[in-house]
């Protein structure tokens, strides 16, 4: 194979088969400037025109270095041994786009494949060979044999490609794909601002979506409608810390789903704060508010601390808030099911 020397600006760096293409970093540009290109790129020549098959970051970096050419090895357009390696789903020779995609994957072999990279590969291959074909052709290069990510990526690929950026940025985990795929497109669209607002774990996103969809079902409306009247879409703009924002969103969605439970909890919390102000006594309600009782708990390390706790408890026994706290579940908290919150 004779090396070719190509002008990097003559090469299409945005071709879809270069699905992991990224801007070169300073280290690569510096290395190319100081040492020159130590590894050739790969091109496929079709009709005398070279198509870059691997080496897009090198090509992009060389564009920035005046007068530099890209050294590339040209692979034949069709694999002469194709019949011996029938990778194509129909057993015939590989189509050019498939071959380009697989060469690109092969040239990246050994690289750690993130969830977002696997999804990006899927976006390229699935339109060409379907999900099963993608997993059969590219799966072995992307996933270890016992890696369940193949199935998760397949599920993710049913989502709109706009979500891939959130996967790449770590806002949405791959495992949430199934939950998100269950949303109608307009509901997913409505939830997008919240998806982008925090870094969701699979568990927290799953809980958030369950709260939302169940609240909507109880209200007899779409999740998008529930969300739009909830006021939660304004929360990301309030300058909260990431943790507070996540907690605030989850609490708000839980309130939508469980208005009576959360009202009772809030009443109990307010009364227990009032009652235990200035003491280290912690007060817990009965399980599920099933009985008119509460648990008072205090940890002491000394005689003095115990005396103080005893005095605090005596004061609580006389406080007007105590009977209200004990009877908190007797107050009506009900709303009509489905009533707007």
């Amino acid at each position: 194979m004779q090396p070719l020397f190509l002008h990097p600006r003559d090469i299409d760096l945005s071709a879809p088969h270069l699905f992991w293409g990224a801007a070169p970093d300073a280290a690569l540009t510096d290395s190319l400037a100081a040492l020159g290109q130590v590894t050739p790129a790969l091109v496929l020549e079709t009709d005398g025109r070279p198509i870059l098959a691997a080496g897009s970051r090198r090509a992009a970096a060389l564009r920035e270095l005046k007068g530099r050419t890209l050294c590339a090895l040209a692979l034949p357009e069709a694999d002469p041994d194709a019949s011996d390696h029938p990778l194509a789903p129909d057993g015939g020779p590989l189509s050019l786009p498939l071959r380009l995609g697989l060469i690109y994957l092969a040239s990246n072999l050994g690289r750690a494949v993130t969830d977002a990279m696997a999804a990006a590969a899927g976006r390229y291959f699935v339109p060409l060979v379907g999900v099963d074909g993608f997993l059969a052709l590219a799966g072995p290069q992307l996933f270890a044999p016992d890696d369940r990510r193949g199935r998760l990526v397949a599920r993710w690929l049913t989502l709109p490609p706009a979500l891939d950026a959130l996967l790449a940025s770590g806002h949405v985990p791959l495992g949430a794909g199934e939950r998100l795929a269950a949303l109608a497109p307009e509901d997913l669209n409505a939830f997008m601002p919240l998806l982008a607002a925090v870094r969701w774990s699979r568990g927290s996103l799953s809980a958030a979506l369950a709260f939302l969809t169940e609240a909507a079902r109880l209200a007899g409306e779409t999740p998008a409608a529930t969300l739009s009247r909830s006021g939660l879409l304004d929360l990301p703009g309030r300058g909260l810390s990431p943790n507070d924002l996540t907690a605030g969103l989850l609490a708000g969605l839980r309130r939508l789903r469980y208005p009576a439970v959360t009202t009772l909890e809030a009443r109990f919390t307010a009364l227990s704060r009032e009652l235990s102000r200035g003491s280290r006594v912690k007060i817990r309600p009965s399980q599920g508010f099933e009985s008119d009782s509460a648990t008072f708990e205090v940890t002491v390390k000394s005689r003095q601390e115990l005396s103080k706790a005893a005095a605090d408890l005596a004061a609580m026994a006389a406080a007007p808030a105590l009977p209200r706290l004990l009877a908190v579940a007797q107050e009506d908290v009900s709303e009509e099911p489905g009533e707007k919150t």
Partner: protein
Amino acid sequence: MSPPLWDITALAVDAAVAETPMAARARAALPEAAVTVLAAGDPLPQAPNGGRGLHVKAHPGRFLRPCPATRHYRCCGYQIIHIGENCPMDCSYCILRAYFRDRTLTAFANTEAMFAELGRVFGRDPSRLFRVGTGQFADALALEPITGHTRELLGFLAGHPNVVLELKSKTADLTWMEADPDPKTVLPSWSLNAPAIVAAQERDTASLEARLSAAQACVQAGYRVCLHFDPICWFEGWEREYAATVDMIFDFLAPDDIAYVSLGSFRCLPELPGRLMAEGRELPRYMLGEFTIGPDGKTRLLRPLRVRQLRFMARRLAGHGFSRGLYCCMESDEVWRAALGQAPRELGGLAAHLLARAHNPGGTRPCS
């Protein structure tokens, strides 16, 4: 050709009970069913044509059991005679879903052993009163046209007037009346629900009208009846729906015709919704209520919401002149007081109160 009763296309009879009257009745009632006599250890045959099987067998254990109560909630002291397992109807809230994975129905044909056990218990002290029902794991009457179990039992109980048998069902079957029991010793009873719940969540059950017509027929024959609102479900419009059912009761019955009415808010094992979804069903909306886990480990509607349900039902029933025989099923004293204005203790204990209602139309303790 009419479809087979309850879709039963296979009748499997254990060899040990093949010669019993119940096995003979089942054969006669299911003339089209594929009949197999099973030797010990034989597997159950597959029911043909996508139908279900009925397995007639002997029950090896105790027949009389206390109703499964917990120490956290007030129990009604009911005792249950174990007559068989599984139910041909299909209610989305049914606890049997947690116990039985297949559709096979089971009926226990060793009634001689059952009567021997019951005779020892009921005959020990004839002045001791019992309130019993059948079918801890089944509807009391669903299989009656096939097995004749209740008719046989009523024949036996004729010699034990200290026992009142409650027959709780969602069918309108009255074939048990052929046993001609003393009406004072039988309490036919029906589970009722909101029309929307009956229509959407109680597959293959009799309509509300059919249940209440059957209750009316019993009253006309001299029986008092019992009604059970269990589970009361929380869903949009529940008040209107349950009011409709309560009002309908009194189109068919007078307050004095009813020995007692139980009220029980929907509660379930936490895994029930998952089981339903695993069957490919959409979760009913009433299962999306505001639930908490009670101290008995069951999922229950939040207490203030339950109180609201139970209070609503009590007031509606009281509006029709029925209040004395009302009780809450598996509830705490707190809920009793909030919903009904008194705790079981003030009635002399729930079990004693219901025993008195069951044995005496006036509802006071009979002199013994």
